[in-house]
């Protein structure tokens, strides 16, 4: 569905290029919910932008590409970076981060829905018929069709997010990218939005990519996930396996820091800060914060490799049997 090959990108700045994604190689499959996790500034949103092919100055692709391929209504399609724009909304759609301000404030929602439906998709019907289809779709999502006559400022934050999800899924795209879809919403609304996304994915059997810094969201929603650290993946695999048995020390510490019901021990955060992307450390980028780091870690960049079937990690010691101290950190 989405295949990322040798992807490296950078931002052009006055102090020279800042590498934000390094040598990414991974695949997102059909009919799955894929999560991208990581701290702020690790490159989650950049990755999503590249997946969606929003390559605007100062972002640039240095090498590699993204390939979007699949099949819709029996017709196969394939687009790669630079051409993915032609597939926007038909095969791939995007639910943006700042959902509160992405709707035109002074036109009714119906005209924004009409705007988003390509001409060729409604050339055989009148405007009323198209709107009827939209209204039916909204009702299917348990949203009122009266929303179509509303202006964005008349909706609550959660409702706006739901409308945008409806907007992004109306054309039944093969891939839906959601950038922090529940950030800035309260937990009750969060839950509603997540349920809506999951239900839509189940019905459309398409690919949903969720970017979130919230590990709870990934645990609840995603089937597979990748954990990013400083511009590349630290670990990637099935979500339940990652939570059960994290391989990379960063993942171990991240999951160790999550609160659990019935466990009253104080949680330990990860000491230190992520490295500045302008001046990354040589070798493994997590080495300065890693409790297990040895000399090799500070000299040699670890390879992102398949440690077990379907489990990838970028650590020199991944899969080297169980070290004694792994448990202590992971618990």
């Amino acid at each position, binding site marked *: 569905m989405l295949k990322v090959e040798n992807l490296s990108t950078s931002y052009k700045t006055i102090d020279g290029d800042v590498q934000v994604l390094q040598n990414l190689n991974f695949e997102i499959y059909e009919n799955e919910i894929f999560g991208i996790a990581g701290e702020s500034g690790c490159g989650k949103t950049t990755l999503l932008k590249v997946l969606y092919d929003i390559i605007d100055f100062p972002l640039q692709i240095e090498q590699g590409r993204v390939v979007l391929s699949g099949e819709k209504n029996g017709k196969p399609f394939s687009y790669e970076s630079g051409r993915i724009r032609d597939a*926007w909304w038909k095969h791939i759609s*995007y639910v*943006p981060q700042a959902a509160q301000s*992405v709707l*035109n*404030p*002074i036109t009714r929602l119906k005209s924004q829905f009409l*705007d988003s439906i390509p001409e060729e998709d409604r050339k055989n019907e009148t405007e009323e018929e198209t709107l009827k289809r939209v209204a039916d779709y909204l009702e299917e999502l348990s949203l009122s069709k009266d929303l179509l006559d509303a*202006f964005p400022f008349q909706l609550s934050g959660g409702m706006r997010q739901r409308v945008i999800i409806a907007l992004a899924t109306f054309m039944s795209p093969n891939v839906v990218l959601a950038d922090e879809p529940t950030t800035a919403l309260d937990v009750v609304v969060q839950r509603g939005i997540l349920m809506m996304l999951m239900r839509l994915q189940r019905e459309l059997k398409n690919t949903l990519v969720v970017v979130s810094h919230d590990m709870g969201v990934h645990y609840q929603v995603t089937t597979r996930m990748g954990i990013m650290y400083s511009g590349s993946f630290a670990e990637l695999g099935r979500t339940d396996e990652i939570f059960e048995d994290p391989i990379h020390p960063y993942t171990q510490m991240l999951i160790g820091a999550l609160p659990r019901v019935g466990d009253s021990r104080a949680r330990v955060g990860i000491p230190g800060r992520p490295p500045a992307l302008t001046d990354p450390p040589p070798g493994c980028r997590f080495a300065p914060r890693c409790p297990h780091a040895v000399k090799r870690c500070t000299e040699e960049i670890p390879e992102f490799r398949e440690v077990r079937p379907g489990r990838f990690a970028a650590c020199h010691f991944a899969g080297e049997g169980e070290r004694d101290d792994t448990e202590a950190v992971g618990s």
Partner: protein
Amino acid sequence: MSKGVKQLKFSKYLGLRILTWALTIWIGVTFIFFVPRMFPSDPVENMIGRIQSRSGQMDPVEMEALRKTLRVQFGLEGSLMEQYLSFLKKGLLQFDFGPSLMSFPTPVGDIIKTYLPYTLGLMLVTTVMAWLIGNFIGLQAGFRKHRLSSKILEAVAICIYPVPYFIVALILQIVFAFILNWFPLQSTIVTMGGFGMFIRSLIRASILPAISLLLLGTGWWIISMKSLSGTVAEEDFVLYARYRGLPETRIGRSYVLRNSIITQVTALAMSLGGVFSGSIMTEIIFGYPGVGTLIQKAILQSDYNMILGCITISIVAISTATLIVDLIYPLIDPRIRYS
């Protein structure tokens, strides 16, 4: 909210708004009534001086009688308060400002009526044209700022705009009227000799003033629209429209233009209200016969009634323009609700 409550709210809003409208006009005309009366020159003494210079010395008794008659006829009899009240009644309600003092005894209203169409015609046409052209170019410059044509047009606008208006006007006048002799130095509009003659002389008299007004007006609209639409074009909803794969023309029209034109409509109404004061310099430089030259002459000759008449009309025009904008605002911006 039910419809009834909405209606009630609207009538309350409308009532209050009309009240402020009336209040603004009243305060404005009160100022303009008292200020000329503080001038050191007195129109009655001016008139007597003029008569004396023509017919020699006068008998003091006769002069006193003349002074009295003139005061009555000029509408300057009685105390200041009495004059004020009669002005409010006649001037504001019936637009009757009494006789002009400099072209006695023609009523001020009649004189304004002959000059007003020229000023209104020139100013309204140029203001609206400048607005349309300027906003169109400004939108291109702000929304498609990487195009070469946008950059060139914007550079031209930035060069023209800061030049003081009278310099532009004088340059046009010197080049086209004095050196090239294409247009008359002093405009005369021929009202006799048939409609064709009239139109021809009107166009000949209006072209230079219109060009000067268009140049500067357009420059201003380009610059303001460029910065407005430039800001709107960076907004999330425009980016998201692009990410949805909308055609650029559609984004330009219903996302960028619709959101930046709101401010420009207000500004247009404001500048429409200000056409009278804006016309003074144009009309003086090009010798165009309109309300602007009339105001200038009236001030020089302390023609109280004429000043009052011209400026009252201007005040009423500006406040009415603002009132209309306030009332049509919800039509262009749905976020505004009367309450």
